């Protein structure tokens, strides 16, 4: 019994390190006159607001890491690449690439 428990905990730890959870965030978006959606800032879970400096790529994609799928924006935030996903109106990030 004890053995089993440690085993699963270790295993789960390993899995959660390999597949970090998806983190839902608040996002500031600009909608252009053509209806294009451009995110320009996001509010992290600690309520701090980060500016998106640049968007490198926009396309539909699935995130196998976080588990989800939708429009993917690869953003530069303070010199780090962040994958930001718009999944049916809810936005989430996968931890830095």
């Amino acid at each position, binding site marked *: 019994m004890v053995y089993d428990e440690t085993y699963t905990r270790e295993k789960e730890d390993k*899995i959660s390190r390999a597949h970090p959870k998806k983190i839902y965030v608040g996002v500031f978006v600009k909608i252009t006159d053509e209806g294009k959606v451009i995110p320009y800032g996001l509010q992290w879970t600690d309520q701090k607001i980060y500016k998106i400096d640049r968007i490198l790529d926009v396309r539909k*994609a*699935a995130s196998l890491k*976080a*588990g*989800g799928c939708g429009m993917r924006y690869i953003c530069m935030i303070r010199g780090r690449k962040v994958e930001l996903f718009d999944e049916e109106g809810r936005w989430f990030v996968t931890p830095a690439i």
Partner: protein
Amino acid sequence: MNTFYASVELLYHPELRDKPLAVGGDPELRHGIVLTKSQLAKKSGVKTGMALWQARQLCPEIVFIPPHYDRYMRFSRMAREIYGEYTDLVEPFGLDEVWADVSASRTIKGDGRQIAEEIRARIKRELGLTVSIGISWNKIFAKFGSDYKKPDAISEITKDNYRDIVWRSPVEDLLYVGRSSSRKLHAMGICTIGDLARTDPVYLQTSMGKMGLILYMFAIGEDQASVAKENTSAPIKSIGNDITTPRDLVDDTDMRVVIYMLAESVGRRLRENHFMASVIEVGIRDNALLCFTRQQKITSPTNITSEIAQHAIRIFRANYRWEKPVRSVTVRASSLVPDTIPYQTNLFEDESARQKRMDADAAVDDIRRRFGYFSVQRGLMLTDNVLSHVDAKEAGTIHPRSYFV
């Protein structure tokens, strides 16, 4: 799409990816069968349609996840959007399979294999799912090809290689050779699709009827059916809902609750599609799994929930004596007519009261559309919270359509 429901669930549960998984109804509510299993569960012998307890016996560490149809619909829609970029001839076969005729796109998008390769890669990247694709000159061999190699594979069945690939395969691999056809074919000494193709079609017709000829045409690759255009669906012939109840039904009160609940769904779907029904059918399955259906023509066509329910209850009372508790119930409305059709009013029925009931139904539909199914309920439903707490309309309206419609 390979192990569609299971793959979608795995995408959303990365932590379960190295565990065997099956998507199946909630065992608490007794919808206890495996709908789809993941590749890992398949290896331990879990099969679609198995009861959950059987699956657990074969594979003790299996994880069961109740189905999320809204998610599957979304993925199915997204996949169809991708196919739609290659052709407008996309014919769905269930939620996760389609036929697409890309002959006309060849000049722009490249030949069949190139398009298939592109679609496979895009679905993997954009949806995170794997697909297997069959390419051929007819629908039957294309379907065969998609089942030939799995997962994440493309098989091409051409006029040069079909004798080697298709004809050597067991006859059960052909679409529409099910348990009973395969038994008949085996009795005739036909074991492979090639055997079937080499048999005299007249002999097949005399022993199996029309189906024999159809299967023969399938086997020689002469199926001429074309791929239907996007968004053209066959006209609806009947609307019905069935439910396996959370507990066995034992008396008329239980039955009233369940029939009203199913009638709510049937009525709402009739109204949504602007139909009225002139035949009501009731199907009963008792706890020994014995089942029967009875139907009755009604005097004036209806889409009023309470009328459907009352007719269904009358049919049930006339045909069942409670020899055994009941396990599942179906209510179906058929002989549909458009709801604008003029009909003969009945001298002995109060038409203004009917109109009022119609208005009431419309109001309830509107409330439910805005605030959800359980926002407004019949008083009857409060007699049994367990039985009535199922939204029959949302819970079960997905069926792959037959090839022959």
